[in-house]
């Protein structure tokens, strides 16, 4: 009989000893990891605005194809406001994020549809692909007026053409325009980490999976400027913040 008695002899004979040791070891590691892993918090909030929706109508008479793509008038997206909130605000963690995070390989998409960029404001991580597609039966060009990253300008003269770009450095914000259709504008925030969001028409936003810590949050709007808030995020405690633009 071996040193572990009949039970030990049984396990050895059935080839169960090694798998059992591995399971116990993995369980101990998992318990230790989860006990000490940083908890991820949801940070949500609203951007308040006491102004009015933009009433500047976009005139697309430079291109009849663009005009024919819309039955209803198209208005500028500079100020988008419903329910006292402000949309198209880029909210991001400016300071306090430890490390850079992993680089996602899933592309973020920027579409040209009806001679308008969709979405108007978006975020992407450093090294993450940005897929830009022309969904219009007319030509566009994508002119990124980057100042930290390399400026680029690519023609997309045909419907269905796609191009993928990657930004190598953080930059808030990069203005994207179409030189053929000057009303077409979008803004891209490039960050090292994934902790950013764009507010909806009512000003609501949420940043997921933020570790507990102390952060400086910044809210950027293309016309109304920038607002900043310091926030303490505690483990197990979802946090809400407010920004106000007049």
């Amino acid at each position, binding site marked *: 009989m071996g040193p572990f008695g009949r039970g030990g002899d049984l396990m050895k004979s059935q080839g169960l000893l090694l798998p059992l040791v591995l399971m116990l070891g993995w369980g101990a590691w998992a318990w230790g990891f989860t006990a000490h892993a940083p908890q991820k918090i949801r940070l949500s909030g609203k951007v308040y605005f006491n102004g009015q929706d933009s009433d500047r109508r976009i005139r697309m008479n*430079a291109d009849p194809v663009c005009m024919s793509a819309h039955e209803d008038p198209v208005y500028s997206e500079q100020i988008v406001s419903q329910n006292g909130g402000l949309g198209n605000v880029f909210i991001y963690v400016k300071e306090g994020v430890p490390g850079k995070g992993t680089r996602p390989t899933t592309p973020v998409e920027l579409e040209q549809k009806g001679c308008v960029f969709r979405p108007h404001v978006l975020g992407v991580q450093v090294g993450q692909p940005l897929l830009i597609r022309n969904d219009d039966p007319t030509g566009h060009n994508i002119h990124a007026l980057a100042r930290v990253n390399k400026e680029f300008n690519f*023609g997309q003269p*045909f419907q269905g053409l796609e191009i993928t770009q990657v930004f190598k450095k953080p930059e808030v914000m990069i203005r994207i325009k179409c030189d053929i259709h000057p009303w077409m504008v979008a803004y891209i925030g490039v960050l090292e980490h994934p902790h950013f969001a764009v507010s909806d028409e009512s000003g609501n936003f949420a940043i997921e999976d933020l570790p507990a810590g102390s952060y400086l949050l910044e809210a950027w709007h293309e016309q109304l400027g920038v607002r900043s808030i310091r926030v303490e995020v505690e483990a197990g405690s979802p946090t809400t913040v407010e920004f106000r633009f007049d």
Partner: protein
Amino acid sequence: MQRSLRFVFFAQFLVVLGSSLLRAQDPTAGMSVKEIYEKACASCHGIYGAGLATDSPLLPTFEVEPADLTDPLFNSREPAADWFMVIKHGGRPLGLSSQMPAFGQVFDDQQISDLVAYLKSLAHTDSYPPGDLNFLRSIQTIKAFPEDEALLLGRFESDDEIESLSTTFYYARRVGPKAQVEVKLSHLARESFSGLHEVELGFKYALGHDLARQALWTVGIEAEIPLHEREEESDQVVPYFAFAKGLADNLTFQGNVLSHLPVDDPGQGNIELTGVLHWMTSPWPRSFSPGIEGKVGIPYEDSQEVSFSLLPQLYLGLTRGGHVALVAGVEIPVAGPSYDYKLHWFLLWDLADGSFWKGW
């Protein structure tokens, strides 16, 4: 028999299906180059290449008005290779407006070449020498191509007893399709003298060209008028024949035959043969191109020596568009009157391509 027929029909179906799928992936499949131009270029350059209408809503949005491709002077003076680079890489890398997009990811090199050929056909340029024959300027060989240029030239000479520094301002302006007028003003500084030394007036005319053979030939005449020691120095007339020949995509040759004819005594003049070989190391204008130049001077007076010198030099494009360049070289005597060496340099500004400060 029936089985083999079914196989043939199935194979034909596969061929048709496969080619249809391929065409679906290429948006330019079946399009003429004219149609490609209308889709990709006409929005900014106009349906006929003449640019935007004066009442176009796009016009105020452009930093630089899109080029009029139907202007024969503009169309002819631009090398096809330069247009190829702009279409493929966009305006900004070539020192042009950043609003000119890059199409290198949409069209392959052959399509871009075909498009350039179409753009070149938009103007009547038969009377104009083509810009493809506009080769690099060298230190001593007269350039065959008529130009709009300004140069600041310098020459430092050293021999046993004398050192001198000559500084020259040169300005050339095109006149009509084929001609050019020019003026030079030189300053000389040496131990015994410092002041304006000489003024030179010149006229050049492009006689003909053969684009297929990459050849251009030109005649011209210069009048050199000394401004000091006029009792000792004679006015000179300098007629010349200049030619240019492309030897390969990145190798060019230019040569001159000219004669210095002192007005007071033409017999004291000479015949001069110069030639320069340039090797372009890159299709990008902001690059360096080494050259080797040779000059032979044969005096009419038998008692005087035949001179031969070599002048290795380096041409450096300074701006993204290459319209500002620096050239420097050393002239080394091989035969004839001896001197230690002559250092040559010049700073060139191609006036037709815009501001001196553009595209750095």
